[in-house]
Every structure is written in structure tokens, then in C-alpha cells.
């Protein structure tokens, strides 16, 4: 188990290195090829050759790409110094460089955005897992009844309707229609938990609806499959109550494939829920990435890409470990 974990962690590092090479390659080599000058991006409109030369030395653009890459990786792991010979700026680890636009460290910008995205993803995940699994199970148990059909039509709607649509309908109903909530922008949890909760509910519900619909459908299908298994018949033949048969025997098998799905979905979401964040004007990783792409802010794009990759890879690792706990047939070797 420990050996397995160590080997997997090596895999995680290797995967992230590959991702970093690819992103670095794309974002730094492409400007070289197309003839655009990254130094010019830092310099702004009013500039001259001397200033640009200074920036090139400071950012290391004068060095070969392979060396720049190594400096970039070293910056993430151990921090780096931007040295012009005249003055030196230290960028502590993890250093993803500076934004072209704001000249603030990319890491600080990401730190600023992570709580927003994390709040969104965590809360929505709790809602969609509970709601999705519960409705899926009920639907499977009440197969071909009015309840089942209603739930599945709702799930179909959830899967089909885009976030920006439900994101507008939800406040229309919950805020202006029923008056249960106020509209508010994101407020940090540490500042005012009540306001944070109030600001999060609409985005949570909107985002969770989409995922819950998928989870309900998968849960229903898996549950129906499991209920047809021989070991469920055995459980009933033993004289177990239907409650025990469902909760203990059927549900555990049903949840296994959902764990994999959840790991990937959640890991992916941590990289930024672009549509939800945009719809509710949240300053999360997703909106930051979109803004950076629009502005050609290469260091920010790279930073968020790497961070998103890290989340997905870690989620995968955790899922694999969990799998071994859930299913005794899985051996971690």
C-alpha cells in the first residue's frame, strides 16, 4: 500500500512535469515562432529598445528555452530572483511568474481566486451528490411509476439546460419569485459566514442541478443493474428485510462507479467553473483564466493550467486509493 502510494506520487509528479513542458512549450515557444515579443507584453505601450532589453535580461528571455524552462520549474519549487544586474526582485516559491497585465505575482492572484472556486465546488458537490444519489435511488426503486418518470424528466432537463440558462432562472424563481434569497456578490467565508452562505446558495443550486441530473441518471441505471445481481437475490433468500437489502447490499455496489465519476468531476471543477462563475460574476479561477486568455496574459494562463492539472491528477489518485477501500477485490500493487 505504501509502496503503491509512493509510486503513484512519482506518477503525479511526472504527469505534472509533462503538463508543464507542454504548457511552457506552447505559451513561450509560440510567441517566438510567431515573432511576437513577450518582453513587449510586459513593457506596455510607451517603451524603447533599452527598456525592452532590460526586461529581457530580467525575465530571462535572452536565455535558451530549455534553460528558461528549468528556471520556471525551479521558480515553482524553490522560488526565483528576477535580476537585472541593477536591482533584484525575489519571487518566493511557488513562483509562477508575474502577470503581464497587473504585474502582480500569478500565485497571489490564484490564492485570491482559489477560495471562490473552492467554495463553489465544495458546496455544489455536497448538494449534487446527496440530491443526485437520493433521487437516482428512489427512481430505481420506483421504476416505471409516476415518481420515476417525473424525476427522470427533471434529470433530462438538468442535463440539457445550460448553466447560463438555469443560472438566470434560479434567481428569477428563488429571489424575485419566491423571495427566499437576496442577490449578492461573493463574500469571503472568513469575513461574514452568513453573507457567504447567502451569496453561495444560488450558484451552488445552479451548478449542482447540472451535475445532480447526471448523477441521478447514473445512480438509477447502476442501481437497477445491481438489483438484478445474483447476490441481491441471495440477500433476499437469506430473509433480510428489503431495507437492509437496499441500504447495505445494493447501495454499496451502486456507489462504487460514482466514486470515480465524482473524483474526476470535482477535480475538474476545482480548475474553475467558468460558466457558473461568469453567470454570477464570481472572481474565481475560471473567470481569471478566461480573462487571461482574452488579454494574452501568458503567465496567468500557465499558472491556472498547471493548478487545474494538479487538481485533476490528485483527484485521480484519491479515487484510486478510495477504490481499494471500497472494493476488496482491488489490489493496490
Amino acid at each position, binding site marked *: 500500500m505504501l509502496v503503491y502510494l509512493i509510486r503513484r506520487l512519482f506518477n503525479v509528479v511526472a504527469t505534472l512535469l509533462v503538463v508543464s513542458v507542454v504548457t511552457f512549450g506552447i505559451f513561450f515557444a509560440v510567441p517566438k515562432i510567431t515573432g511576437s515579443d513577450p518582453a513587449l507584453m510586459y513593457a506596455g505601450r510607451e517603451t524603447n529598445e533599452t527598456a525592452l532589453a532590460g526586461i529581457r535580461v530580467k525575465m530571462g528571455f535572452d536565455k535558451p528555452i530549455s534553460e528558461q524552462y528549468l528556471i520556471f520549474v525551479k521558480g515553482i519549487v524553490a522560488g526565483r530572483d528576477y535580476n537585472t544586474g541593477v536591482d533584484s526582485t525575489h519571487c518566493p516559491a511557488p513562483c509562477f511568474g508575474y502577470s503581464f497585465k497587473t504585474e502582480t505575482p500569478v500565485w497571489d492572484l490564484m490564492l485570491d481566486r482559489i477560495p471562490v472556486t473552492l467554495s463553489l465546488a465544495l458546496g455544489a458537490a455536497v448538494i449534487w451528490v446527496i440530491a443526485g444519489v437520493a433521487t437516482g435511488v428512489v427512481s430505481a*426503486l420506483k*421504476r*416505471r*411509476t409516476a415518481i420515476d418518470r417525473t424525476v427522470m424528466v427533471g434529470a433530462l432537463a438538468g442535463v440539457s439546460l445550460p448553466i447560463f440558462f438555469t443560472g438566470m432562472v434560479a434567481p428569477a424563481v428563488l429571489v424575485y419569485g419566491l423571495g427566499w434569497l437576496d442577490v449578492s456578490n461573493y463574500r469571503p467565508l472568513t469575513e461574514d459566514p452568513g453573507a457567504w452562505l447567502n451569496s453561495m446558495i444560488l450558484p451552488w443550486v445552479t451548478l449542482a442541478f447540472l451535475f445532480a441530473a447526471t448523477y441521478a441518471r447514473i445512480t438509477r441505471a447502476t442501481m437497477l443493474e445491481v*438489483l438484478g*445481481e*445474483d*447476490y441481491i*437475490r*441471495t*440477500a*433476499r*433468500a*437469506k*430473509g*433480510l*428485510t*428489503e431495507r*437492509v*437489502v437496499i441500504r447495505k*447490499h445494493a447501495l*454499496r*455496489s451502486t456507489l462504487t462507479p460514482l466514486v470515480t465519476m465524482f473524483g474526476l468531476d470535482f477535480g475538474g471543477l476545482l480548475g474553475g467553473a467558468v460558466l457558473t462563475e461568469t453567470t454570477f460574476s464570481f472572481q474565481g479561477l475560471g473567470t481569471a483564466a478566461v480573462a487571461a486568455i482574452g488579454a494574452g496574459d501568458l503567465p496567468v494562463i500557465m499558472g491556472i493550467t498547471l493548478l487545474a492539472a494538479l487538481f485533476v491528477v490528485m483527484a485521480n489518485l484519491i479515487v484510486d486509493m478510495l477504490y481499494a477501500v*471500497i*472494493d*476488496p*477485490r482491488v489490489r493496490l500493487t
Partner: protein
Amino acid sequence: MTDNPSFVPEPAGPAPGSEPFLSVRDLQVHFPTDDGLVKSVDGLSFDLERGRTLGIVGESGSGKSVTSLAIMGLHRTGNARSRPHISGEVRLDGEDLIRADAEHVRKLRGRKMAMVFQDPLSAMHPYYTVGHQIIEAYRTHQDVDKKKARTRAIEMLDRVGIPEPAKRVDAYPHEFSGGMRQRAMIAMALVNNPELLIADEPTTALDVTVQAQILDLIRDLQKEFGSAVIMITHDLGVVAEMADDILVMYGGRCVERGSAEKVFYEPRHPYTWGLLGSMPRIDRDQTDRLIPVKGAPPSLINIPSGCAFNPRCPYADVPKGGITRTQRPELTLVDAAEGADRHWSACHMSQEERTRIWTEEIAPKL
């Protein structure tokens, strides 16, 4: 039931006054489907006493397994929409299980009647240890603490011949071999000392070498506990080894029933002849070919209105004295003079004709 004959002969019963331990009368299990009503079991009757073994034989889809699930009340569990219509009587120890409260039948399941299934790998939950599953079966019906139940589970594993039971009790099903898994299944079925054990093709999924061991085990345990056993199989060899009585099913109905001796040595139904002819035997000359039963089992939606076996019967054209093809043959006594050793079959051919065909045409070739 519309096309069911009103006359169902009562099978051999015990002395008047005492009811047989298990008594099935005119059992019908019909599944409504989009294509029509599937009559999986259509009027089945038999009796079984404690300490006796009944072998139910037939092809796939003849209604063997459906019968066993109906006795166990397992057709009444799960989704209400997919449950079959069940009618008739299943009396266990004097109690009609078909009309009994579902919760009451649940309490009998696993305690008074238990079941062993065909494929022990898929029949055990992969996520729980063998011991856990046996303990669960025990504690569902007995008010004991976990420790006592665990001791009981180890005792049962030991009893069914699993080595190092105190260690293997914590193993998962996938860590057992096929034969060991079936032993564990049997331990689980017998943990509450059931009086009726239904074994649904218990050896079909196992190696030939293991099959005999499992059959021996079931037989030994039956002697020890004195329970009634229903052995469901398509393998006549298994039945020959195990059964006191044999019931041959075809198209959801009984076509021949009697003591194992009678059915094996004096069968009086063309389908039974077919089954015997298609059974490989070591003492038979290798140049003789097996004689398969031609054709396919009937669709249970459109069972032929007359004899269900008629389309496949090699003797369909034998004159039957005015009986038309749409008339259904009823179970009748082969020889009314026989006493306890009663033998029933359902065929339109006359007794004399069948005796002649068996002794002159079929038996010499087997």
C-alpha cells in the same frame, strides 16, 4: 386461469390425516410482459416429505428455477411492477405461503427454508467477507451477539469442509476457489438449520471433480439435519445420485413424476426418453451417438394448446384413438395397481403403446 384444466390429479400423499411437509398444488407463475403473458409455471403439483430429496429436471426455461423462487416467495420481493402473477398453493408445514403475509414469508426465508444458487461467485456479495455474510444470515433470524454468531459461522464453515475455518471466515468470496465458495454458500444456507433446502443447479458452475464433493456434502448434511431437499438440475446424473423422487418438467408443466427408480428404469414419457437418450454414459459403446431431443423448448407465451411437447415428439403421429392435437394430456397413473411407488405421466399414447416403445425401441439403445 382460463386454459388450465380443472382436473389436477392429487399426487401420492402420505397417510390420511397428516399433511405432507411441503405440498405444492396447481402452482402457476405467470409473468406479464409487453409481448404477452409468459406462463413459466402452469399448474404444477407435488409433495415432499422431510428427509426426502426431490429432483426437478428439465431444460432451460422449463420453469424449474421459477418454481423454486415461487416457493421461497422471492417473486414477491423487489419492484412491484415486475412481479409475476402467482396462484395455486404452496403449503409448507401446513401453512399456505402464497397467501401468507409477505413479511411472514420473509421471516421463514433463510430460517425454515433456504436456497443454494448456481454460481457461488455471483451469488455472494463481493464487498463483504464470507464470514460477514454468514453471520448476517444467522443474526437476521437469531437473537445472538456478533461473537456468538461468528463462532457459529466458523463452526458451519468447518462443518462444510472448509480448511482453517477460523482464518477463512475473514476471507472475501473472490479469495475462495469455486468449490470452496459453494461450500460457503451451503454453510450460509444451513446456518439456521432450515427444514427445506432448495439447491438450484448447485454444481453446474463447478469443476466436475468438485461436483461430486458438493453433492456428497449436501447428502451428508441432509442426513444429519433431516431436511427436505429440492434439487433442481438439468443434469440427470446429479438426479440419479441424489433424488428419491423425480419430477420432469416441460413447458412449465410436469410431464412425468415418480420414484427415481421408476422414472429412470421405466420412464413413460417421450420427453423423459429424450433426456435419457441425450445423457452421455461411460458404459455405452462409443460408436453410438447421443440422441438429442430435436427442436427447441416451446415459447412460454404461446404454449401449444395441446401437448406442449407435441412439436418435438418423435411419436406425434402415433394414432391416439380420437384424441385431437389441441387436447392437453393430463397426468395419469402409469399403473393404478401400484401402491406407494406411484408413477405419473402425461401422454396421449396408451400405456400399452408406451410400454412397448420403451422396452422395444428406446431401452435397448441406451
